[in-house]
């Protein structure tokens, strides 16, 4: 049994009487990539926090056996000393320090006691950066100048500097585009060759089946099963079945399209970067959406889709904006977000934590935020708190938000339920046009299904919907028509019948190629 690196036995962890983990067992073999799957709130992150000492020994019951000995970690430093390093979803880098400084943060290379040896630091940093594929970056540049993908790699470099043996990655690719994700997965495989064991938490099933050697599925605080690549057949459907406890025969709910006339149209839209007025972010974009139609915006990350949507939404982004917007044939002049909302346009942000929600406020306040001045909720600026409660309760039931009360702060909800609160906010503003930016980012399969159902219902009610998504299967699954966007321009338009991932990629590639000519 020497090839077992880590065994967690009968782990139970309670939060004020609620069992987040209930008799969970996890066995990780030396040198493997082990994926942890489960819906949001299933207990994956809690389990990893127990392992890394975030919840100290005594705070949970059960035992952790690492390298054959029982461990009782009191804090993260304890577990790091043993070579267990966790990289959280939110990166823990100091943006205004250089790469080298970050790599050795809290673990500085010192010559004498407390004096940092900068030359040695540099030399060691360069050495480590090679292992994570960052050999082309100077170790002196600031972390804030790197993209998220590269920052993630710096995090891994930081873990390597700590002589990591067991690396835990919590949704490492959640905020990365396909290209960066692929690169990161490649690095994980090469680390595996160097003998580093990895535990990765992920929602992205295709990535899991690509890199993982074994998979443990957790549901509602219980271990459901562990699948081994060499013995079991691992397919996405198989994992989903374990995660949700039922077979999701169709990941995208069916919808009958009843498409009407064009109700929303944007013509010759141009947007420049807000800080750099010479950089054009959106270039001569024209598109239209019909009543009851779901239109997708496909493209690589940084293609300018978010910028396009936000600039339409009352100039919430950009400078030197030009172009025309028509709704029901009438030209709109939107100078502020309020103008946009008043004209029946809603924008669901991709960044629900920073741009979508006020996390310290409760569910009902968040829901009514964009429609407080409507007659329903206020009269001459005086809020009708009772109507507010009624409306919030109504939406809670309607879109099935799982919470104890609508007066619960939204920070206490899972990602999927938070997203539903954001959707409720925009549904309450009674828009005719909804621009949805990555509406299912970072939420689990079950919640995704529910969000798609909401989108279907909205389309069924005759709204015009734009969905921006970096997950191509999602666009294929829910859209009637897709615009392919690249470098701020429309690179193509695809009808439902001809939609395929290959064709979308081809359009992007063709557009990139065309630019080079």
């Amino acid at each position, binding site marked *: 049994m020497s090839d077992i690196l880590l065994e967690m036995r009968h782990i139970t962890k309670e939060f004020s009487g609620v069992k987040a983990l209930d008799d969970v067992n996890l066995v990780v073999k030396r040198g493997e990539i082990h994926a942890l799957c489960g819906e949001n709130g299933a207990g994956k992150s809690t389990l990893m926090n127990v392992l890394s000492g975030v919840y100290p020994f005594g705070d949970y019951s059960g035992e952790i056996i690492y390298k054959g000995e029982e461990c009782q970690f009191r804090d993260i430093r304890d577990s790091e000393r043993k070579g267990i390093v966790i990289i959280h979803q939110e990166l823990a880098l100091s943006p205004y320090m250089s790469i080298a400084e970050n790599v050795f943060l809290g673990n500085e290379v010192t010559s004498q006691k407390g004096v940092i040896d900068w030359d040695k630091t540099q030399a060691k940093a360069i050495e480590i950066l090679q292992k994570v594929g960052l050999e082309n970056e100077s170790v002196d540049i600031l972390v804030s100048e790197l993209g998220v993908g590269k920052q993630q790699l710096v995090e891994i470099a930081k873990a390597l500097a700590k002589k990591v043996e067991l690396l835990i990655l919590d949704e490492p690719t959640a905020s990365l585009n396909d290209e960066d994700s692929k690169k990161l997965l490649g690095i994980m495989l090469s680390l595996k060759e160097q003998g580093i064991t990895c535990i990765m938490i992920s929602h992205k099933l295709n990535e899991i089946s690509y890199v993982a050697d074994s998979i443990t599925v957790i549901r509602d605080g219980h271990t459901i099963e562990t699948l081994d690549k060499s013995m079991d057949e691992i397919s996405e459907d198989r994992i989903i079945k374990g995660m949700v406890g039922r077979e999701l025969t169709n990941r995208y709910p069916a919808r009958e399209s009843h498409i009407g006339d064009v109700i929303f149209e944007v013509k010759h839209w141009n947007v420049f970067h807000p800080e750099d007025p010479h950089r054009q972010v959106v270039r001569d974009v024209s598109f239209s959406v019909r009543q009851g139609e779901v239109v997708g915006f496909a493209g690589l990350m940084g293609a300018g889709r978010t910028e396009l949507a936000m600039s339409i939404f009352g100039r919430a982004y950009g400078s030197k904006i030009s172009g025309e917007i028509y709704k029901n044939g009438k030209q709109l002049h939107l100078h502020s*977000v309020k103008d946009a*909302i008043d004209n029946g346009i809603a*924008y669901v942000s991709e960044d629900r934590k920073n741009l979508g929600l006020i996390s310290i406020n409760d569910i009902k306040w968040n829901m009514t935020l964009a429609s407080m001045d409507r007659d329903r909720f206020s009269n001459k600026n005086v809020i009708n708190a009772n109507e507010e409660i009624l409306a919030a309760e109504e939406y809670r039931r309607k879109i099935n938000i799982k919470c104890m009360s609508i007066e619960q702060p939204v920070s206490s909800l899972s990602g999927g339920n938070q997203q539903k609160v954001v959707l409720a906010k925009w549904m309450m503003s009674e828009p005719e046009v909804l621009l949805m930016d990555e509406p299912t980012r970072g939420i689990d399969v079950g919640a995704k299904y529910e969000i798609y159902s909401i989108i279907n219902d909205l389309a069924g009610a005759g709204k015009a919907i734009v969905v921006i998504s970096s997950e191509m299967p999602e666009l294929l699954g829910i859209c009637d028509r897709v615009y392919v966007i690249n470098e701020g321009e429309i690179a193509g338009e695809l009808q439902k019948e001809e939609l395929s991932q290959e064709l979308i990629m081809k359009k992007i590639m063709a557009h990139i190629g065309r630019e080079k000519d």
Partner: protein
Amino acid sequence: METKAVIKNRTGVQINLKQYGMMIALVVIFVIFTMLSLGKNASAMNINNLVMQNSYVVILAVGMLLCIITGNVDLSVGSVVAFTGAACAIFVLDYGMPIFPAFLLILVGGLIVGMWQGVFIAKLHVPPFIVTLANMLIFRGLTMSILKGQTKGPLPDAYTQVGAGYLPTFYIHFGNSKLDLVAVLAGIIGSLLIIYGEFRGIANKKKYNFQTPPLWQTTVKLVIIVAILNFFTLKLAAYNGLPFVLTIMLALILIYTFICSKMVVGRQIYAVGGNAKAAKLSGIKTDKVMFWVYANMGMLCALAGIVLSARNASATPKAGDGFELDAIASCYIGGASAYGGTGTIIGSVVGALIMGVLNNGMSLIGWSVDMQKVVKGLVLLGAVTVDLISKQKNK
């Protein structure tokens, strides 16, 4: 998991333990000092002094709370109080301006001072800490310069009425003591209004089929509030009647509580403090909110400046020194978060009263001013620490 501090049911009734906690603390501190000072603390004269001494802190705390909800502070408050008080005294004494036009002019002046700061904060996006720090220096300097370093006074009686005067009285005498019927009546009418308001709220909830709190809870709450209110008005009745500043304070508390809890603009201030970017993308004009929060603070500074100069019957270059810190401390003690997004008017007022009762009580039992500062500092530190720890535990 669910936070304990906010126990609630479907009704929308939030029982904020923290806020009641501070009210209980206020009563406990008051009782302790009553015992230490052998009852001097609760004498009619001292109750009256408490109101008079703390009126301007309460006025400033109300405005400061709005700044703090947005996640910022206003450091210029003390200097602006001094400046507006000095300007008002100069208008009345040197230019012979009639009193009420002078007051009005100063209030508008205060608003303009606030707008001046608002332009830098909201339009030019200079951090409020820096803008108000700069204006703290600017207006202190201007105050000294327009007063030429000297005290301006004495101010006419009609002026000092605002800070040191009383509402008309109607005394009844029995034996050695007298009682002002107006104050007694105000207490009774106030009690009736509170009871009416409470039951109307409940009736409204029933109309919507919401659950309402059990009757005993409402009764206990009302009995306590009515008892405190009437204790207070009876004490004032036994002295000189209702101080004029009390009406100003009450009006401000009512108006601003209404704005914060019932009006769309109030909700917008909380939203900006909670997450400015999300608020902006929900159609709230965040710059406009910031601008008016600081403009409002300027106007309330002017009001406090008038009240302070009236109470002192003069304007001095050193007036209002450190008021900004008292106002900020009141808000924090009253449960506002230093990160913005939370806080209540009533909490800040309770915070101001806690500071006031401490000051007054320690003076009565003969503690030196030095020790008073130490104790006040410890109370601020303690209140905020307890608040943070209880929040962390509930997470």
